[in-house]
């Protein structure tokens, strides 16, 4: 197990960074959706 971890260090870092980045993208996309909804409701009302 430790062998595997020590050899593939870079890829583990990559995985973690991609996960964090994925989280950020999800947050931004949801934020954009909510803003769009509010903008549309303001236009209609």
């Amino acid at each position, binding site marked *: 197990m430790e062998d595997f971890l020590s050899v593939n260090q870079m890829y583990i*870092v990559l995985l973690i*960074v991609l996960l964090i980045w994925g989280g950020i993208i999800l947050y931004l996309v949801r934020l954009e959706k909510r*803003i769009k909804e509010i903008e549309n409701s303001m236009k209609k009302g």
Partner: protein
Amino acid sequence: MKVVKYSSIVLVTFVIIAGIAIPTVREPQGLFEFPMIPGLGQKSRNIFFHVPVAWTTVVAFLVSMFYGYRYVRTKNMDYDIKSVSSAGLGFLFCFLATVTGAVWAKFNWGDYWNWDPRETSIFILLLIYGAYFALRSALENEEARARLSAVYSMVAGLTVPFFIFVMPRMMAGLHPGAAGDVEGKGPVLELKMSSNMLFVFLVALLGFNLLYVWMLDLRVRAGKIEYQRIKQQTS
């Protein structure tokens, strides 16, 4: 804006994967190997993240200054919203640049902080952003707040060229390109990076800036909504 959004996601994802996964070897052959830069080794990967983020914070500051100027000339509140939004993002990116820089400094030079001219400059930029927001929170009148914070950002902006260009050249420091650096102006300006590294770096520069543009758009739209709400409540 859709183009900006999707391309920024794609580009930054590419940079993350390429920047971290492509191995560094002594004799790079082909597209999927990076050269070993003397003194850096694996740590050279940071260049894909730390430098574009630092670059973006300066861009955000200049944009904030520009919109501040537009406000002062037209008294249109929209410009103030754009100015604050950009300043907020700039502050975030500045913080990230400082932290990534400190981590890199620890691994490369032994200490988290050394008061090297470029380190000092990014710290000063952080202080300028902080001062900008402190000033805004002390002014309740929205016109005064918009006007005076715009002027401050422009006055502070006058000193930024000194930090970026003059100080690092004049004083000895740790960053490449400081006075007394044997290697010249650093890996970017001296093109020490191989062409595939340069490619990833330029993609990173573009990607992070596009990300900033998208985030700015979101913040401005949210800011405008908030402003409408406030206007409706008080009228």
